[in-house]
């Protein structure tokens, strides 16, 4: 057996009283793909930051190819052959691909020789790994999938032997993700070692050789992927049995609740984000909007939620609602029976510095039940918070804690509790489980299904196809602001939706 490409021995790291990593050991063989899976806050990112020299471990050793290596900064990490592809790309938008690759790795004070050498090497790399990009295109001219390739090329150009990818498929279409994994496969066959950090069980199951599960700063298990199952991994992540599938009875759609006709949205930069959309959501059904992030779904949710202006017409229970000017704000929407769980709970759904009890009526704070004369009835708000925290199992159940002190899942539960408990006719819900741990995902999905079964209309926007498919009754796919097609959820699959998401139209795709 050869020396492991990378071996961590007893890594520990604490931030103040929080133990982010506790006695973590892994060993990754060269030429394999090793997955690291865990919930938010399990310590995956901290571990990778230690490996890449952003943090210094309190205890423990890093061994690379059988030699003990100190990694005090990212320069040292690069020198040790470690390359990192971050979740948010670190590219200069108005530089070309070539310039981005050379940036920070120039040979001398003169740029030209570096660039021409890089051009030659890039060509070799491209051929070796089938990683084609146009070196003279500017970053802002190429797509997200291409940008990610540039990041990988950057690492390879710096002679990386070990490639760490942090949630690499979050921004990709299914097709782009497939391409990425083909590239990773190729890299593996050329002897590179890949560490894949993700929260998607499917990716782990399909593409990794071995997988480590992290929970609360500790490595709970390292197993061969082939000998494991999604259920087992989920249980290791959460610490208890989890229901991965949503229990779904067939929908019984009633009368139309939300009717959208020729809805368009132009953003402040003058770009048309939503183009002439027609949609209907009926009582007792979930309409899922699939699409790669940035294709107009956010704007669609925002205009329905009263957060931005639009043109066209929308009707709730047959009543038309204004799309701009007076009566088109979020408060008026709430009056009309629309509840809204926004895509970004940290910037929109919650005021992070407010106490939980100040957030629990946010948006409904002018309603009579929360008022005592001219004043806010703070005591009523706190009692309401305690009740909702109990019902939605928010932990810790302390109304005085600031919203930012809760975990992502518990923050989302606060928002979902607030919106669902209003008993709305229509629920708009965006990225309901983004950055939410598996246990809370299960809970939130159940809540959404229950609301549907009570006969409410639900419009769900998510970039997670799995989520769309498992919750929705009908799926509409958005691409470039338009609806590319609508399918019953039980008569379509990820492949067909993936094509629509990439803008390939066609009835019988």
């Amino acid at each position, binding site marked *: 057996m050869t020396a492991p490409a990378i071996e961590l021995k007893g890594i520990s790291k604490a931030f103040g*009283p929080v133990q982010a990593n506790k006695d973590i050991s892994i060993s990754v063989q060269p030429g394999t793909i090793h997955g690291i899976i865990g919930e938010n806050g399990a310590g995956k990112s901290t571990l990778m930051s230690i490996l890449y020299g952003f943090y210094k471990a309190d205890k423990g050793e890093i061994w690379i190819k059988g030699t003990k290596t100190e990694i005090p900064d990212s320069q040292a990490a690069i020198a040790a052959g470690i390359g990192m592809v971050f979740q948010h790309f670190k590219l200069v938008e108005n530089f070309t691909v070539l310039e981005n690759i050379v940036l920070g790795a120039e040979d001398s004070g003169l740029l030209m020789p570096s660039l021409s050498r890089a051009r030659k090497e890039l060509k070799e790399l491209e051929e070796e790994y089938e990683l084609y990009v146009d070196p003279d295109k500017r970053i802002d001219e190429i797509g997200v999938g291409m940008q990610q390739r540039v990041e990988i090329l950057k690492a390879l150009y710096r002679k990386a032997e070990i490639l760490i990818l942090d949630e690499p498929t979050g921004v990709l279409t299914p097709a782009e993700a497939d391409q990425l994994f083909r590239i990773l496969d190729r890299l593996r066959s050329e002897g590179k070692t890949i560490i894949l950090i993700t929260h998607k069980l499917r990716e782990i199951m399909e593409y990794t050789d071995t997988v480590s599960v992290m929970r609360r700063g500790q490595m709970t298990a390292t197993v061969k992927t082939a000998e494991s199952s999604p259920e087992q991994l989920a249980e290791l992540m959460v610490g208890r049995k989890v229901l991965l599938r949503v229990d779904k009875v067939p929908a019984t759609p009633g009368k139309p609740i939300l009717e959208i006709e020729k809805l368009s949205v132009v953003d402040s930069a003058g770009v048309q984000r939503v183009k002439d959309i027609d949609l209907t959501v009926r009582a007792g059904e979930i309409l899922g909007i699939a699409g790669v992030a940035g294709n107009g779904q956010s704007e669609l949710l925002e205009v329905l939620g009263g957060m931005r202006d639009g043109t066209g017409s929308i009707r709730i229970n047959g009543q038309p609602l204004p799309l701009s000017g007076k009566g088109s704000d*979020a408060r008026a*929407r709430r009056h009309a029976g629309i509840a809204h769980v926004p895509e970004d709970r940290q910037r929109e*759904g919650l005021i992070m510095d407010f106490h939980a009890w100040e957030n629990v009526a946010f948006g409904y704070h002018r309603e009579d039940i929360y008022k005592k004369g001219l004043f806010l009835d703070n005591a009523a708000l706190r009692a309401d918070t305690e009740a909702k925290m109990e019902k939605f199992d928010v932990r810790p159940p302390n109304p005085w804690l600031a919203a930012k002190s809760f975990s992502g899942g518990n923050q989302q539960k606060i928002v979902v509790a607030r919106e669902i408990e209003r008993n709305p006719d229509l629920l708009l819900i965006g990225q309901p489980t983004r950055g939410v741990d598996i246990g809370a995902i299960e809970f939130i999905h159940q809540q959404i299904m229950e609301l549907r079964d009570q006969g409410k209309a639900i419009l769900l926007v998510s970039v997670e196809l799995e989520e769309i498919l498992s919750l929705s009754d009908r799926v509409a796919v958005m691409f470039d602001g338009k609806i590319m097609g609508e399918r019953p959820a039980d008569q379509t699959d990820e492949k067909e939706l993936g094509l629509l998401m990439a803008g390939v139209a066609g009835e019988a795709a």
Partner: protein
Amino acid sequence: MEKMPKWADVVLIPVISLLLAAVISAIVILLIGENPMEALNLMVNGALGSTYGWGYTLYYATNFLFTGLAVAVAAHAGLFNIGGEGQAMIGGLGLALVCLYIPFPHWSIALLVAAVGAGIFGAAWAAIPAYLQAKRGSHIVITTIMFNFIAAAVLNYMLVSVLKPKGAMDPATAKFPESTQLPSLHEILAPIGIEFSKSAPANVTLFVGIAACIVVWGLIWHTPLGHEIRALGKSERGAVYAGISPVRTVMITMLISGALCGLMATNNVMGEAERLVLNATEGAGFIGIAVALMGRNHPFGVFLAAILFGFLYQGGAELALWTNIPSELIVVIQALVILFTGALDNMVRMPIEKIFLAFRKENA
């Protein structure tokens, strides 16, 4: 990350900041060859050693209460109102017009109506920058400071060309009628047997200021509007999501802020000068920023900070009167206090936070 206890945040850190400012002030005083202990003694005695001193300290403090509250209210909405000076000047103008041209039977009615006049004028002066910020996105810091200069020019014109009585030499209005004269602390405290200096300018508006603290406290933390102001200050996207109109909320917040600045005129113009003079505000609008900073935008904190700055103002004046310490140095001392309590807050905060965390770890 765990935080330190609240008392350390609101008491310990300001006190340490103050001590640091005092130490550096002492060094500066030593350097110019004066005795810092003697200077401190003079300041304390001059500001707090007699009811006369207290009378001045509280008079200044009343000014700073209003401007400090004004800055604090705006800060909760994420707005930095540094136009307090101009808003207080124009508030003074509104107050003078009310006092000069409306006959009043009793000072209490005069105070009420004059306060409304001053508040409306102050609010109006804040309304234009507020509108420009809310609708056009012109930064409120820039516009409010420009409006300070415009206010000074407007006041100058009004006093020199319109309001100055015929034949008078100085740019000021006529003295307000006797029925608008406010009772001083001396007059208020005498019936209950407390001897208070007759010549000190502290007056009934001190209680108006304290009432304003309570009203602001209720507004910010106990009304839907205050909820909206604070939400907007923390996250504009969040406010839009909740159906809070940023335009409307910015306007209302700045009107309240401007009105509070305008109210200062009840103290310095109506209570003390009893006529409107040029430069009546004496920089109180700017001190309000430091007061709000030091008071952490909380009315009670503003109250304490206003008294501290009242002390510095009065003590500083005494210092300039009785020693060879030049009056510019007083400004240096005040600036040091502002620097340490406001701008360098984190310099003290971070080490203290670390110490607390270290202690906690040991005890854990």
